[in-house]
């Protein structure tokens, strides 16, 4: 079979078509997001810990989070990430993350992506509610969002300049068991985690996150209001590493305690704030986190219609 060599004009034309197709897909998703209605969720204040509540089916939640961290032996940093969380089913939520960071007096860079899935195996509420969490991540060593702490992660890992850190890339699989219970307005969640770096000669690493939270009022007021106490949920998180398969335990690990507050607006926006304090010398002294999110209902349906589904 003869293969005709593509001329520069043909190549250019293909490139333009590819870009147009990509642009069309991006525009379609944006259109779908804009066409979807904002929905109000009762979001927890946790930034690291997960409770057992999944995204409502068909809804898309778009979230932006930011972590400003102090760094001994290096420059302070601002790490940030965007999450797109979609409720595929009432028992399955899938989420895509894009991570980046700015190290002050150094540079700004995108550091990778994550794809997580959460599955609820049980049909009803139980004394403790388990959810299975599976994540694949492809990030560079320059990633500083510290969304989870695992193994022997310590502050000094982040001290090198970005030019050195960005050369190392990690492909990781992460598994968590999300255990959570709500009782008399309180939510308590415990998340043990295990991570496997898929690069050679890396052992399984372990970590944990725990959290507790409660709305400031358990009863709704009859009026629509932004400042009603029921719109605020306060709590705390604690998270840290537990070593790895070769050296399990608390030595050479970092740990954090973080009060957390969420403000759920009736308009569908949620604001979160959480200053995290390092609990030992291996931890960053301060991780000041905040985030903003908005949930859109009917996103899945809108995308379905855009790609030929029936109304």
């Amino acid at each position, binding site marked *: 079979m003869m293969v005709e060599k593509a001329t520069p004009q043909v190549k250019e034309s293909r490139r333009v078509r590819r870009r147009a197709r990509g642009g069309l897909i991006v525009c379609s998703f944006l259109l779908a997001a804009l066409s979807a209605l904002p929905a109000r969720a009762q979001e927890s204040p946790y930034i690291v810990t997960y409770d057992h509540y999944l995204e409502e089916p068909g809804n898309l939640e778009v979230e932006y989070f930011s972590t400003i961290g102090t760094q001994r032996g290096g420059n302070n940093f601002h790490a940030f990430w965007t999450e797109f969380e979609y409720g595929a*089913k*009432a028992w399955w939520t899938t989420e895509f993350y894009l991570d980046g960071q700015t190290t002050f007096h150094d540079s700004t860079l995108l550091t990778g992506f994550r794809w997580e899935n959460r599955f609820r195996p049980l049909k009803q509420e139980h004394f403790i509610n388990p959810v299975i969490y599976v994540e694949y991540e492809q990030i560079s060593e320059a990633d500083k969002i510290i969304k989870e702490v695992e193994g022997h992660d310590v502050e000094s890992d982040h001290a090198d300049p970005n030019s050195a850190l960005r050369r190392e890339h990690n492909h990781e699989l992460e598994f968590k068991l999300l255990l959570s219970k709500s009782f008399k307005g309180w939510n308590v969640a415990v998340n043990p985690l295990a991570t496997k770096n*898929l*690069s050679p000669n890396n052992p399984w690493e372990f970590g944990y996150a725990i959290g507790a939270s409660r709305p400031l009022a358990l009863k*709704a007021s009859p*009026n629509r209001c932004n400042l009603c106490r029921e719109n605020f949920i306060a709590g705390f998180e604690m998270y840290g590493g537990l070593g790895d398969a070769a050296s399990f335990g608390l030595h050479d690990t970092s740990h954090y305690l973080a009060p957390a507050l969420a403000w759920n607006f009736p308009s569908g926006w949620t604001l979160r704030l959480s200053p995290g304090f390092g609990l030992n010398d291996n931890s960053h002294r301060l991780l000041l986190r905040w985030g903003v999110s908005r949930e859109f209902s009917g996103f899945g349906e809108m995308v379905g219609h855009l790609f030929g589904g029936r109304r």
Partner: protein
Amino acid sequence: MKTNIALLRPAMLLALAIAALIALDFSFALAQKVNSDAPKKDKWDYAALAKVPEKARAKHNPFENDPDAPAAGGKLFEQHCAECHGKNAEGGKKGPSLLREQVQQATPGTLVWILTNGVVRRGMPVWSKLPEPERWQLVRYLQTLQSTPTLHPEVRH
């Protein structure tokens, strides 16, 4: 650092497992669509109401005599429920009407139990993230709505 292909196998397996799950989901949706071509009187059934434990059914609404409860419940309904069940609880593509006799004649305890536990396999999430008093307020609001007659829902298993 170079990535060892052999060690990437778990990632591939995970991707395959999730792809299989998506494929299963599509085939399930297709099967439902084929079944839905048969003539039907009502898309939704209310079978979950019959499965509520007796102890939960017997619970009384602590907000029964609270004059603010219907208004507070109405606000909560608009914020959390209307997107699936319709602005006036008349039902929508994602959720059944809550004006039907089956719902209106259910005890407050039955409705709170359904709210707390959801009907997860049928698309209704658990709502235990709302504090219990808010769930009772919601039920109080639902029971102020006008009931509409049943349309002989088809029984689905």
